[in-house]
């Protein structure tokens, strides 16, 4: 097994609500690792805690309990200054590049900022050289650097967002729904770009998405989340072929398929995702699960490791 880059142990994030007894359990006790050089896909529906997990991993928000370590260094209690020094090594690409890029700055100013903060010794010429190199890397043209974010199309803006993320040569990048706001033909362009950049910069990705087709294409391992919990985690092959957890089964069968006419195998879930303020007792998925047994209503299943290494949180018998 290769080197562990991110180690998350028993991570919890509760957001307080007006009722002190009932916080929103956005992330409720999850443990996982991300290995050097891999792409871990995090998939789930709205409110499952996938974005919160991404922010916790980067220590952008403080966990309620649990720890996150980056290359053996625990981030959770790091001082502000020490954390800032780490930021260059771990970066994030946001969903909506229009909201995450300062509208009053030119692309040059946006991309120069990381160098000015982390490498104050760098002169203007060197920064300029770095920025033009970045712009070229993400497939934009040199004349683009004096433009403002609003002058770009969505896909180009996301390229600027990617350039910003890789400016400091990070080792680890969290991609939070990086292509969800883009048109399909542009999505493909950006996905390919992210693949190229991963190779060129030896990146490790945590790729958060609700799009199961893109996760399948892009990731090595997949973590399926539901209501703040990990319900299944394993290699892409194991997740998409074996589909052990009933939620994974339903989720994968819900993907609209353009190639076959057979939709009969679709598992239609009834009901909505419960509120994380008031999660169901026992297994969080039990009210929507067609295999629900008595034990599921009482006892929350732990992640069990299968013979092929896949972890599944379910009371059902499985290999």
């Amino acid at each position, binding site marked *: 097994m290769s080197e562990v880059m991110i180690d998350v142990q028993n991570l919890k994030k509760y957001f307080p609500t007006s009722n002190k007894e009932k916080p929103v359990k956005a992330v409720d006790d999850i443990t996982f690792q991300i290995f050097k050089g891999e792409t871990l896909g995090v998939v789930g*529906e*709205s409110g499952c805690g996938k974005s919160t997990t991404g922010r916790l991993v980067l220590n952008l928000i403080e966990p309620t309990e649990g720890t996150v370590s980056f290359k053996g260094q625990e981030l959770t209690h790091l001082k502000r200054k020490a954390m800032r020094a780490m930021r260059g090594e771990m970066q994030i690409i946001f969903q909506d590049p229009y909201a995450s890029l300062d509208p009053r700055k030119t692309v040059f100013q946006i991309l120069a900022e990381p160098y000015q903060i982390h490498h104050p010794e760098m002169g203007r010429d060197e920064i300029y050289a770095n920025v033009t190199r970045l712009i070229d890397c993400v497939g934009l043209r040199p004349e683009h650097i004096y433009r403002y974010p609003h002058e770009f*199309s*969505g*896909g180009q803006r996301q390229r600027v967002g990617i350039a910003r993320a890789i400016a400091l040569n990070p080792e680890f990048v969290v991609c939070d729904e990086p292509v969800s706001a883009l*048109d*399909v*033909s*542009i*999505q*493909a*362009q950006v*996905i*390919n770009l992210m*693949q190229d950049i991963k190779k060129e910069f030896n990146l490790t990705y945590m790729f958060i998405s*609700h799009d*199961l*087709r*893109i996760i*399948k*294409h*892009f990731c090595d391992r997949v973590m399926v989340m539901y209501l703040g919990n990990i319900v299944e985690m394993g290699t892409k092959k194991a997740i*998409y072929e074996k589909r052990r957890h009933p939620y994974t089964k*339903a*989720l*994968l069968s*819900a*993907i*609209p*398929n*353009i*190639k076959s*006419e057979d*939709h009969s195998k*679709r598992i*239609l*879930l*009834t009901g*909505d*995702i419960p509120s994380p303020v008031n999660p169901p007792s026992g297994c969080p998925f039990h009210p929507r699960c067609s295999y629900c047994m008595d034990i599921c209503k009482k006892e929350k299943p732990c992640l069990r490791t299968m013979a092929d290494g896949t972890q599944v949180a379910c009371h059902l018998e499985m290999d």
Partner: protein
Amino acid sequence: MSLLEVKDLKTYFYTDAGCGKAVDGVTFSVDKGKVLGIVGESGCGKSVTSLSIMRLVDLTTGKYEGGSILFDGQDILKLPEKEMRKLRGNKISMIFQEPMTSLNPVFTIGYQIEESLMLHKGLDKKAARARAIELLEMVGIPEAGKRVDEYPHQLSGGMRQRVMIAMALAGDPELLIADEPTTALDVTIQAQILELLKELKEKLGMSIIIITHDLGVIAEMADEVAVMYAGEIVEKATTRELFDAPKHPYTIGLMNSIPDVNEEVDRLRTLEGLVPSLYDMPSGCRFAPRCQFACPECEKERIPLKELEGGRQVRCRRCEQ
């Protein structure tokens, strides 16, 4: 028989940037009880097409520059506004992408459905309420009798979209236009809503125009598909024909851009470049600048939509031979 016939529809917008030809000569028809899918990316004119059918285009900048929209033989574009109001929300109704912004947050959902029933169907308050509850049950809202007094914010996204559908059904529409009805929803909820729409179509015998950027949704729902690009239909075929053998290079490119769950590829094949600006359309084939097969001939003049064997239509020079 065709319920709706759109002929050479042109909807242009006049702004400081010039004349934007959002919909430029679109022709299609929808038969009774059938589902037509209109697919395309942002700015291709699919939403403006649907707004034109509802006559909801903002006329401060927009203008219907030509063509006709025949609904039951009557040209909608020529109807006086008063007549149009009778049709809209009644025989033709529409659901939108984001149910939270299309529902009024300060009124209960019951009130909003009743309003339409009293207006279009002439029901009194009591009958309207009973019918509203019935409609909510029809779209699968549990405990409809209780939910009818709730406000939009008390409902989940999927439930809100069900309410929108109930509201659209209030006038017993013959044509339902669904503009990206599931785009804002999670996949498992999307599957529920698509299932509901299919069920209602069978039960009520209405026609549906579904507008989406998602080819998967089209494959599930539509009998026939029109692919739009830069204000024009570039390909029209039955859903099976289109997915089995796409003809137009844009359709092919669009399909290749979506990773297939059943197949493994190293790299996605992409369409290079960007959609042309509405205000600066190429004079010839509008897709030519991004087309790998483009030749100088393509850029000379606008390409007509040509009918191939079996009735499918393609706007491409290569498909003529």
